[in-house]
């Protein structure tokens, strides 16, 4: 596959922070419309990988192409959903206010002052329909449940008609039911765009995701069908306990971590 066709293409990318290497010699090639999960231990470089794709961080060496362009040029076509924990739960904004933030852009979607037009509102409502939150458009963001907020933040990311969706731990802080719903929504979106999702939860990974990007300084990409205990052990590099996620246990016997 050539670089212009790949959604994300890394060649020999390295990045170090204060002289300690975070990512070493990374080569990845994610085809368009792939649904990939980025997994790995904390501090393994997941966030850095995400930031390089977004162009927020420049790698020390190597070459990066996102949607066939440099990350910064590709940025307007990337829908990004940051980690949930960063939001002030009391912030006074409505659902529509939040989604419309996805339409902001310098000289782009809505001009210098950032005033919204009919087109922006239509797009925002369409994005809300896609995450099944259309009826909640006028409710305050602060009164929503965790799962609903996550969906609103996905709608905000979808609002700019992205070719790729980057989600940073979308399943943290939501219950199992909300997680399932989120997953169903992402599955319907997958036919139209590449989805990269940082996840702690390997169970979440193996059922719907097509490939797994394992990040622990080195980066390895596995199709989910090949994912075995051995590969995971290699990536996490140490003692850990494997838990099967593809079956249901008793009421309290199975908690996602």
């Amino acid at each position: 596959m050539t670089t212009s066709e790949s959604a994300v293409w890394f060649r020999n990318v390295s990045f170090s922070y204060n002289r300690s290497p975070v990512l070493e010699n990374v080569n990845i090639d994610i085809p368009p419309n792939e649904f990939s999960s980025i997994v790995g231990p904390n501090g393994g470089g997941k966030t850095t990988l995400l930031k390089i794709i977004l162009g927020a961080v420049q790698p020390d060496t190597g070459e990066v192409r996102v949607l066939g362009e440099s990350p910064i040029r590709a940025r307007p076509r990337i829908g990004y959903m940051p980690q949930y924990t960063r939001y002030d739960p009391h912030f006074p904004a409505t659902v529509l206010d939040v989604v419309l933030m996805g339409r902001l852009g310098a000289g782009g979607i809505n001009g210098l002052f950032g005033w919204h037009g009919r087109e922006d509102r239509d797009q925002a409502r369409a994005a809300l329909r896609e995450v099944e939150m259309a009826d909640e458009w006028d409710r305050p963001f602060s009164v929503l449940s965790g799962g609903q907020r996550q969906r609103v933040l996905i709608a905000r990311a979808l609002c700019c008609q992205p070719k790729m969706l980057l989600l940073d731990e979308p399943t943290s802080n939501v219950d199992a039911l909300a997680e399932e719903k989120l997953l169903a929504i992402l599955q319907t979106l997958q036919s139209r765009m590449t989805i990269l999702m940082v996840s702690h939860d390997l169970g979440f990974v193996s059922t719907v995701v097509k490939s797994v990007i394992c990040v622990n300084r080195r980066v390895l990409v596995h199709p989910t069908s090949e994912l075995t205990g051995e590969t995971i052990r290699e990536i996490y590099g140490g003692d850990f306990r494997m838990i099967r996620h593809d079956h249901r246990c008793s009421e309290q016997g199975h908690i996602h971590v």
Partner: protein
Amino acid sequence: MFEFVQALHDPGIPFLRYALFAGLLASVSFGVVGTYVVTRKISYIAGAISHCMLGGIGAALYVQTVIGWTWCTPMLGAVASALLAAVIIGLVSLRGQQREDTVIGALWATGMAIGLLFLANTPGYFDPMSFLFGNILLISQSDLWLVSALDILVAGLALLFHNKLLGICFDEEFTELRGVNAGGYYLLLICLTALTVALLVRVVGIVLVIALLTLPAAVAGHFTNRIRQMMILSIVLCMLFTATGLAYSYVFNLPSGPTIIVFAGAVYLIVTIVGRFMKWVSHS
């Protein structure tokens, strides 16, 4: 209260009219910018900026009396030093090289110290108390013009760029990634905050002005979780606090700044306690 209304018509005490006019006018900026400050959680930055204004006020008085530049009014000095402090704090927090809170603390104290040194070396007697806690006797008509002009500028800019300011208050990183110059708008927000606190420095003083920025928005936040309503309610509350405080201070012969702030603080306390109580009742 009738006494107060009568006094407003008294040609012998124009400063009362000026103070009320300045208070009502500035309330628009205080309500709008105060809402951003409270939601972005930068009231400590507003505090540092307002205290720095003493440096500008002292310098302006010194220049006015010693060098003889009469146009260099304390109000102008307050505005200039507030903006300078805002730019320094803004750049420090954007660069992230220094510890932001250390720089804020340093500016806070140094600004005041510079002001006191200038005041000490300016011939004639200037009571620092009137700058620290406000003195409506000092309001001149030219101050009022400056307040009006700045008020229109601040409220205008804040409303014009509302969506972008809302974006950086809610999620700065995301807004930046959408291609908005988030750092620039953060700097704009801090500068607007600086101009706002300068507006009422005469009426409530540099120490107390911070309360008038945050309390109306904090009270409004108890009643609504929509930002536009919160702004409108903050404006109304700020007008109410300044007008009522001025009236009480006149009728009971109290200093105006503290009266306004105590009234605002009392309303905030009551609203918070009642809010907690209501929540407790509805949960049990």
